[in-house]
Structure formats: structure tokens, C-alpha cells
């Protein structure tokens, strides 16, 4: 689309340096969601923001090549579907929907692998949130008319 | 399933079914359509007549469907009153249907006319044969709304205007009835007609409900301040439809009032609350104004329509007097006026059909061109005036006696005055058509036959009824009216 984006060397280089750390931080928040403040939304938002930053700095077309709109929508949907799938596991074992206790091994509190499926859910949420944020951004850039902003 | 096959239910359901059947077959064959439209009222008539002996034995045929529309339920019943009125309805409808088959040939949109003709029959019979207020209301609305299609049949601008007026007033009336019915239900917990009424005392809500009934039925019957739609709507309809509107459908209003006064409130409650006075005042005004305004009309159908307003006043008078004899007069007048007014409208229709002249002042010398038709018109008109051997006389006689029973001389005078006015507006018509001067020579050559047989026969049959019913007491109409009135005054508390 006719969005002219500045071709700025400083921005590009700083970004190149920063982006891995931002994304790493996002990952950290995601993975430690059940241990410390943070979680799916916060982590996902950080990662999503990093992707937006990336799109803003570099040419939009290039970003599109790396992660186009369909991909972001896919992440968005896949996150939600994984969440639901985890919910159904509880159901399959004869418990209520989304049951965690008793279905999955809970692990030791304070360690990374604790809280049963919470980690999976957090990751799914992260994928969903980052996908959504990026897809919203792309949607606005493309100026299409089928926006749906669902949380 | 057995319930459905009971004759009062069938009498209502058959026209309903015929409505659907006619709608389906009319595109294929107009003959079948006409035949079905004639057959429907005949079937209802026969079904009703089959109850004759049971009802005369003092039995009330009652069929109930409590499952439909809780908490009110539906029910149908046949007693003296509904048998009499129902037979009149189906009978006149049958004759008018026969008449229609010929009259409507010239009209457009016949495929709309016949289904709604039959649907309106279903509604009207439903009103007459209902066993409770709610069923009555249901069919009352069905009748009113389907009659709208008959009213606006011509689709002229004035027909549309009149139809809209009719529609709005009908809705208002329906809502007033609705309010009254739920108020009665709230007070008494039932809406089934009971001998002697079931509303125990005239509380505020009950009086309000009564006004609701008066408004709802009054609009339909054309009681004077509420009659505004009537003189507009009746003339614009095709003549057979006018005959039904004026002859039959007005009667559902007064029929409803009779039921309300005697079978819902009971004459005692009505008298105690002073509601009869209101009815009497309205009746007097209606009789006087209806007759007086009719004199001024030149359009024959408008004149007949206003005449109907005045005649409804008679019936309301008969109800409002709360006297058995007056009620006999009122019930008999339902029958008498139905026949008379149908005859008048059909003959007027025949003349318009033949000559295209709607104005009375143009009707010179028609007697020569259409002798039989004009004789029938004359007979019906004389009966309206109240000349002794005919049916119109009997009802006036009973009404007058009832007024005397109630000690109200004034009403006797009013009846006489109204007869005089009837004379004033009918006689010139008779005079100019039968004995008019020889101006229009070209028209005097009688064409043979003067009318198609399908149009002439119903008129003649009804005229015969008008003239001879009273001469043969064993025909049982007056007897039925007397029994009906007696049954309504029977107080079982």
C-alpha cells in the first residue's frame, strides 16, 4: 500500500539490536506467566509490539514477506484453538471443561513446570494476542473493511 | 378429534377450510371457486340446522378447547340465540353468495373477493357460535379484518379512504374489547357466557369494562357517535358485500352486546349500575339521527347505510330496556333487519348493475324496466317502514310493547317518529320508480330477462321471507326469539 516509511539507518540498526531483547523479554513474561506477574496477554502484547516496531521500521513489503496478514490471522486462530483444545482435554477425562487439577500433573510450585496446563494456555494466549495485535495493525494499514477487533 | 367434528365447530371450520381451498383452486377453475363459495355457507347452514331439535329441547350444545390459548381457552356453544342468529347469518350469506356469482362477473379481482368472502363468513359464524368472550373476540377480529378486504374491493380513492377509517376504528374497537375482556377475566376469573352473568358487582373496573364493551361493539354496530365509518364503508363496497356488512356484520355488534349485558354482567348488575340508561340514551340518539340523516342522502347506498344506523338503534333500545318483551323485539329485529337490509342492498345493487345509476333522483320509471326487482324493493321498504303483515312490523310491535312494559312512553313515540322518517326516505324512491312520470321513454322498454336468474332468485326468496314469515307462525322464528329472550332473562345465581 502507499504507506511511505522512512528509510532511516539509525532506526534500523537500533532496532536490529533491540528487537531480539524485546522478544526475549516477551518470551520470558510468557513462560513465567504462572510464576510471576505477567502472562499470556502481557507477553503477547510485548511480542506483538515488537513485531509492529519491526514493521514500522523496515519496509512494509519486507515484513509482509516474513509475516503476512494470513500468518498473523493464523496465529490468532491457532492460539484460540489450542486454548479450546486444552479445555476439551479436561472434558475427555470426565471432568468439567478446562479442568486442570487432576487431569495434568501439577508439578512443584515455583518451578517452571508447575501449574499443569497453565503454561500451554499461556503460550497459546501469547500466540493469539501477538497475532491479533499484528493483524489489527496490518488491517489498519491495508485499510480493508472487514475489521473485526475481538479480544 | 371428536371435539372437532361437533357441528358448531364444523360450521366455523368449514368456511375456514374453504377459504384455503378456494385460494388454492381459484387459479385453475373459476367455476369451482364460485361453487365452493356458495357451498360454504350452505354447509354451515345445514350443520347449524342439524342442532335445531336439540336446542329446541332446551339443550345448549357446548364444545370446549381449554388447551388453545391458555389461560382463557376456546369454546363454542349453540343456544336459542346463537342458533337463530347463526341460521340467519348462514342463510343470508348463502343467498348473497349465489347473487355474487352473477354480480361479481363485471368486477375485477374476483380471486381476492371469494376467499375473503368465505373467510368473513367463518369470522362471523365464529362470533355467533362462540361460547365465551374470548372466542368471540378472536373471531370478531378475524371478521373485521377480512371484511376490510371486501370494503376496499373497488380500490377507488374513496374506497381506500373509507377502508382506512374502517380499519382504524375496527382496531380501536378491538382494543377496547380486548381491554374489557381481560378486565372481566381479572374480576371474575372466567370469560365463559353464563346464564344471568358472572360479574358479581359493578366495581369500578367492571364499569370500565362495560364501557370497553360498549365502545368495541358500538363501533361495529354503528351506534351514533361511533358510526362515522359506517356510511363511508358500506356504500363503497360491492353491493353483495354491502348487503353483508349492513345486513349481517352490524348484527355481530349488537349480538355481542346482548351477550355482554345478559350473559356476562347480567341484567341486574347492569340496572344497578345505571348502565342501561346510557344504552337507552345512545339508542334514542342513534334512532333519531340515523333516520334523519338518511333522508338527506341521494346516493341510494348511503341512504341505506344511514338507515342501518337507525335500525341498530332499535336493537340497542331493545337491549337497553332490559325487558323480556323488548328483548324479543330486539332479537327478532336482528333477523328482520338482516333480511330486509340484505334485500334492499341486493336490489339496489341489481339496479346499479343494470343501469349504473346510484342516485335515487335518477331512478325514474325503473319499475317498468325491472318490475320484479322493484316489487321486491318496495316490499322490503314497506317492511322497513313497519307495515303490518311484514317482519319489520313484528319487531317494532314487540319493541313498543316492551317500552310500555318498562313504562317509557317516550320510546313508543320515538319508534313512531322513526317509522315516519323511514316512510319519508323510502316512499319517494318507491313512488318515483313505480309511478314516475314518462320522461325517459327510451328506458321504459323492458329487456327480457330483467336480471340473470342467479341475482333475481335470492332477492325473491328473501322478499318471500319478509312477507310471509309472519303469516306462518309455525315457521318458528318468533318462537325462537321468544325462547332466546326467556333464556337470557333466566337468572340462575
Amino acid at each position, binding site marked *: 500500500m502507499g504507506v511511505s516509511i522512512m528509510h532511516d539507518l539509525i532506526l534500523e540498526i537500533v532496532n536490529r539490536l533491540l528487537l531480539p531483547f524485546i522478544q526475549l523479554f516477551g518470551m520470558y513474561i510468557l513462560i513465567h506467566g504462572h510464576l*510471576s*506477574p505477567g502472562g499470556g496477554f502481557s507477553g503477547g502484547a510485548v511480542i506483538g509490539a515488537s513485531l509492529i516496531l519491526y514493521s514500522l521500521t523496515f519496509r512494509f513489503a519486507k515484513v509482509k514477506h516474513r509475516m503476512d496478514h494470513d500468518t498473523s490471522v493464523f496465529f490468532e486462530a491457532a492460539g484460540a484453538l489450542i486454548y479450546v483444545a486444552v479445555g476439551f482435554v479436561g472434558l475427555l477425562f470426565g471432568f468439567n471443561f478446562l479442568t486442570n487439577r487432576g487431569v495434568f500433573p501439577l508439578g512443584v510450585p515455583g518451578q517452571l513446570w508447575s501449574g499443569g496446563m497453565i503454561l500451554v494456555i499461556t503460550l497459546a494466549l501469547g500466540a493469539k494476542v501477538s497475532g491479533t495485535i499484528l493483524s489489527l495493525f496490518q488491517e*489498519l494499514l491495508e485499510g480493508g473493511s472487514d475489521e473485526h477487533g475481538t479480544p | 378429534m371428536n371435539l372437532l367434528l361437533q357441528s358448531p365447530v364444523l360450521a366455523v371450520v368449514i368456511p375456514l377450510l374453504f377459504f384455503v381451498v378456494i385460494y388454492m383452486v381459484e387459479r385453475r377453475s373459476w367455476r369451482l371457486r364460485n361453487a365452493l363459495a356458495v357451498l360454504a355457507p350452505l354447509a354451515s347452514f345445514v350443520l347449524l340446522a342439524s342442532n335445531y331439535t336439540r336446542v329446541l329441547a332446551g339443550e345448549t350444545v357446548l364444545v370446549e378447547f381449554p388447551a388453545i390459548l391458555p389461560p382463557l381457552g376456546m369454546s363454542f356453544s349453540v343456544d336459542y340465540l346463537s342458533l337463530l342468529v347463526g341460521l340467519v347469518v348462514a342463510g343470508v350469506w348463502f343467498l348473497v353468495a349465489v347473487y355474487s356469482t352473477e354480480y361479481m362477473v363485471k368486477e375485477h379481482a374476483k380471486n381476492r373477493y371469494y376467499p375473503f368472502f368465505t373467510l368473513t363468513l367463518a369470522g362471523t359464524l365464529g362470533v355467533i357460535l362462540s361460547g365465551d368472550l374470548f372466542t368471540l373476540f378472536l373471531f370478531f377480529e378475524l371478521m373485521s379484518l377480512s371484511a376490510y378486504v371486501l370494503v376496499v374491493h373497488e380500490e377507488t380513492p374513496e374506497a381506500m379512504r373509507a377502508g382506512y377509517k374502517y380499519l382504524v376504528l375496527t382496531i380501536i374497537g378491538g382494543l377496547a374489547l380486548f381491554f374489557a375482556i381481560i378486565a372481566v377475566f381479572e374480576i371474575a376469573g372466567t370469560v365463559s357466557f353464563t346464564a344471568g352473568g358472572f360479574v358479581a358487582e359493578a366495581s369500578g373496573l367492571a364499569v370500565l369494562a362495560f364501557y370497553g364493551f360498549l365502545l368495541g361493539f358500538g363501533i361495529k354496530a354503528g351506534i351514533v357517535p361511533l358510526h362515522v365509518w359506517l356510511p363511508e364503508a358500506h356504500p363503497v363496497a360491492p353491493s353483495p358485500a354491502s348487503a353483508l356488512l349492513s345486513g349481517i356484520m352490524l348484527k355481530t355488534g349488537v349480538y355481542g352486546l346482548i351477550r355482554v349485558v345478559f350473559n356476562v354482567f347480567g341484567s341486574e348488575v347492569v340496572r344497578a349500575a345505571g348502565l342501561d340508561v346510557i344504552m337507552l340514551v345512545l339508542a334514542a340518539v342513534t334512532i333519531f339521527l340515523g333516520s334523519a340523516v338518511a333522508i338527506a342522502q341521494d346516493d341510494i347506498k348511503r341512504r341505506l347505510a344511514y338507515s342501518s344506523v337507525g335500525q341498530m338503534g332499535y336493537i340497542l333500545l331493545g337491549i337497553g330496556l332490559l325487558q323480556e318483551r323488548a328483548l324479543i323485539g330486539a332479537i327478532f329485529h336482528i333477523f328482520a333487519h338482516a333480511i330486509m337490509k340484505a334485500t334492499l342492498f341486493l336490489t339496489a345493487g341489481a339496479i346499479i348493475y343494470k343501469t349504473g345509476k346510484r342516485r335515487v333522483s335518477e331512478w325514474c320509471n325503473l319499475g317498468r324496466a325491472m318490475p320484479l326487482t322493484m316489487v321486491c324493493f318496495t316490499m322490503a321498504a314497506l317492511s322497513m317502514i313497519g307495515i303490518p303483515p311484514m317482519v319489520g312490523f313484528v319487531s317494532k310491535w314487540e319493541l313498543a310493547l316492551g317500552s310500555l312494559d318498562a313504562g317509557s312512553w317516550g320510546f313508543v313515540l320515538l319508534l313512531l317518529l322513526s317509522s315516519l322518517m323511514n316512510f319519508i326516505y323510502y316512499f319517494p324512491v318507491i313512488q318515483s320508480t313505480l309511478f314516475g312520470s314518462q320522461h325517459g321513454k327510451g328506458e321504459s322498454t323492458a329487456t327480457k330477462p330483467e336480471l340473470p336468474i342467479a341475482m333475481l332468485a335470492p332477492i325473491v326468496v328473501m322478499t318471500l321471507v319478509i312477507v310471509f314469515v309472519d303469516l306462518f307462525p309455525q315457521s318458528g322464528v318468533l318462537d325462537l326469539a321468544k325462547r332466546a329472550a326467556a333464556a337470557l332473562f333466566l337468572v340462575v345465581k
Partner: protein
Amino acid sequence: MELLERLYTNIYYLVAVVLFVIGFHTMLTHKNLLKKLMALNIMDTAIFLFFVAIGYRSGGQAPILLPGVEKFVNPVPSALILTGIVISVSFTAFALALVVLLYKHYGTLDSDEIIAIRGKKHV
């Protein structure tokens, strides 16, 4: 004095209400659709502040029951508001998309002008 003290203890609620009123006022008085949108966001923020303040204890920590943590913040309001923020974000994004479209169709962001253009078409 007592009044001041009460104000001080309820300072978060007070600020929330003030913010809310600011947002509301801006939304009603400004014609620019973007400003209206911002005003709505301010209002949302005010409500979030209010909600979070309900569960806040000064000096409290994250409610993760590790040894040594005694005083902690009620996590429920925060968790709820996180959801609230998500909703608010998606709402804002959606509204922005609509604003873009509106600008495309009407060529202006002034609500009065938009209504005027629409009205002209209707007459």
C-alpha cells in the same frame, strides 16, 4: 482536617472520578472523532483505576505465595482489569478502523460535518 484525611485515603477513587468526568466532558464537547475516542479511553482508564484501587494495599506485593511475602495485593481486580484492558484495546482498534473508513467516505473527522453531509443526502 478530617475532610482532607478522607480525601487522602480515598485519593485513588477521587482521581478516578475526576478522570472519568474529564473523559466524559471531552467526549461530549469535542467534535473530532479521534478526540472522542481518546476521551473514551480516558474514561475507561478511570474505571480501571477505580477497580484496581479497590484491591490495592499500599506496600503490598504480587500475590505469589512464596515464603517471606506477607502483605499482598488482592489479585482479583488486577486480573479483571487486565481483561478490561484487552477489551478496551480491541474496542479502540476497532473504532480506529471505523474512523479510517469514515474519513475515507466523508473526507472529514468532524462529527457535525458528517451529520451535515448525511443530512444533505437524505433530503
